């Protein structure tokens, strides 16, 4: 059994109002002026039963593309296998 983490976030340059609100209305008001940017994302953890890590990652990549787990127009997606 492997766990594949899928992180879905807006591509750079596409506004992320949630990240901006966390930065401006929470972090900066909390006096952490060293923080310059926050981007929010959605993470999905897939527990998948395959024979090896490579197949686990490939299967999750394939299903994410096929089922439009992320929207390719706007999202950047990162896969990590544990």
């Amino acid at each position: 059994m492997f766990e594949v983490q899928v992180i879905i976030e807006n591509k750079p340059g596409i506004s992320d109002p949630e990240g901006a609100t966390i930065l401006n209305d929470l972090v900066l008001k909390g006096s952490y002026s060293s923080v310059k940017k926050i981007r929010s994302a959605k993470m999905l953890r897939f527990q998948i039963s395959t024979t090896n890590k490579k197949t686990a990652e490939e299967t999750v990549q394939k299903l994410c593309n096929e089922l439009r787990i992320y929207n390719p127009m706007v999202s950047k997606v990162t896969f990590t296998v544990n």
Partner: protein
Amino acid sequence: MYHVLLDVFKLDVKYFWHEDKLPKDLDAIVLPGGFSYGDRLRAGVIAAHSPIIADVKRMADKGMPVLGVCNGFQILVESELLPGVLLKNTSLNFMCRWTELIVENNKTPFTNKFALKERIPIPIANGEGRYYVDKATLAMLKKNNQIVFRYGESVNNSVFDIAGICNKEGNVVGMMPHPERAVEAEINPRDSKPASVIFESLITTVGARK
């Protein structure tokens, strides 16, 4: 939507369950607004995989008029019948207010009785209504005359203030605002006539009266 098509415009209209097949003798398909699957993952994406969408795609490919309103529009983009995506409003709030649309394409089955640049008072009500396309796709939309409605004011930072688009062929139209909430004088404090033209255009297209 059902009430408006049936009682206001006197059309022969039926509901279809999302797991059913569509009969072949339809004249048009309307995907109404509301919510599907609680907007989980992204608005419209799960409903876009409902079995009935395969039939909607098949019929759309044959040129049948298809209108998606609000969640219906989100389902049309997530099923790739229309380009782009609808993002969370910049405010992150559900937005419910009146605004004005400008007709930018009067060649679609739902806009053919409008004058170009005609203005439509209309309510918008959504949480994920900020239309986004990349620059290349926006250029393609402009080139192919796929921008059907723009907002008369900047309401939610949609790219190019786009409120509604169509496919290249023009038969599939998606829009975020709710024309069905604007066609009855009793619930439209401004002017119910312009929004009615969306449905009157459809009737002209399909010639369908009960």
